[in-house]
């Protein structure tokens, strides 16, 4: 206990002490690993929510219901116009209050309900990126050629069949490239959740810096981890795109 506090290591410099870089990281590898696991968890959870928000938003914008349209427009304006950091802070502080108020309507016994930082952060970034996905999905739905839809109608397919077999089947391919970018936004926004104390990689780095005093190497480490995540996402999207655009390549 307190070893590091008493015997501080000299602060890392790239120039005169070669090999020091990795030294400084000793003991922090596992923390970074678990931090990465948290990043992955936040990413996956927010991905699911983002798709839901995006589809709901797109459906509302495309619906003929004025009120739904207004709500969806409000949603995209608010979340595309507000800095991510503010949304996260607001949701973190506001969620408990709001949830408790709602819960008390149903059950006055409840003292308070809380949303842990994990979910506050996850929902925040899903809402933000979902507002962009709303536009992507909307555009993709509109991008389905009206001719395809008319052909399906002329063949006697009903509304549901047209929607599912023609619209959705064509739309996801159109949405994919932009959707890949949304996934990259999500993964990068996870870094902001360190601000509300979630123990992800950037927060690990801050703690490690408090002990080692080596910000350069620690933040580079975080950058490398995120670059790894981005690479995995990019490759996945490329694979899906390859699969999804088979029908656009000529065989010859």
């Amino acid at each position: 206990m307190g070893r590091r506090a008493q015997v501080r290591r000299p602060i890392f410099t790239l120039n005169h002490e070669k090999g020091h870089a990795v030294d400084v990281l000793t003991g922090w590898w596992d923390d970074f690993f678990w931090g990465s696991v948290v990043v992955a968890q936040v990413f996956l959870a927010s991905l699911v929510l983002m798709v839901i928000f995006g589809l709901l938003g797109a459906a509302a914008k495309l619906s003929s219901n004025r009120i739904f349209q207004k709500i969806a427009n409000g949603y995209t304006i608010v979340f595309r116009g507000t800095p991510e950091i503010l949304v996260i802070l607001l949701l973190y502080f506001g969620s408990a209050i709001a949830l408790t108020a709602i819960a008390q309507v149903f059950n006055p016994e409840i003292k308070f309900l809380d949303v842990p930082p994990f979910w506050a952060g996850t929902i925040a970034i899903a809402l933000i990126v979902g507002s962009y996905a709303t536009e992507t999905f909307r555009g993709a739905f509109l991008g389905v050629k009206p001719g395809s839809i008319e052909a399906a109608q002329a063949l006697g397919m009903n509304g549901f069949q047209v929607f599912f077999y023609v619209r959705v089947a064509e739309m996801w391919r159109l949405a994919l490239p932009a959707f890949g970018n949304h996934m990259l936004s999500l993964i990068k926004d996870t870094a902001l959740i360190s601000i509300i104390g979630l123990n992800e990689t950037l927060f690990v780095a801050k703690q490690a810096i408090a002990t080692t005093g080596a910000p350069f190497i620690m933040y580079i480490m975080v950058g490398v981890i995120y670059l790894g995540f981005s690479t995995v996402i990019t490759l996945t999207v490329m694979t899906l795109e390859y699969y999804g655009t088979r029908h656009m390549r000529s065989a010859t």
Partner: protein
Amino acid sequence: MSATQPLIRMEHVGKNFGTFKALHDFNLVVTKGERIVVCGPSGSGKSTMIRCINRLEKHDEGRIFIGDIELTDKLKDLNAVRREVGMVFQSFNLFPHMTILKNLMLAQKLVRKTPKDEAREVAMHYLNRVKIPEQADKYPIQLLGGQQQRVAIARALCMKPEVMLFDEPTSALDPEMINEVLEVMTDLAKDGMTMICVTHEMGFARSVADRVIFMDAGEIVEEATPEIFFGAPRNERTKLFLSQILTH
């Protein structure tokens, strides 16, 4: 639908886009087995007319009957009508994300509830008929325009319709491919299919049509057998149009 009564009846049909009258007091009766060619300048309402017949557009005035069924908002009637009316578009409108075979099977399975194997058989039958069975597993984009249009015809035929509607089926095609599509259509006509065909292919009209209809500004301007229509058109607008179409 019985053969004694007309297959399609359009009575005083009107269709407006905003204040613009795309169709105006339009009357047409088509009996079983009749082959009708519709022509006219761009914007004269040919597409609108043909799209009203299977309710891709809703008409605003008058009445349209397909067999005994009047076209209204009733869903059940609409589905019954669409099953009986096949349509071929200028731009083919194949489903780009499905292979040719799947294009032909989809509506059979979903609308006619045909079992998969039977649907495949029907599909292959019609692919043979339009002479491209070997393309069954390709995607639409891998086919030439003429082939795509033949697939589109086969797709409509798979539903075993009573009438076929064609909206300028060859005008998006390169010249060399026009004939192969017209051949398929001529075959179909010879087999007795009832057809309404918007086209400017006058050779086809001459050899196949029972009646040629010339439209302008949403109305029928002239209606005659091909001999009379091309030989001795009565109306000035028809003459002008024919001179533009035929000189080059």
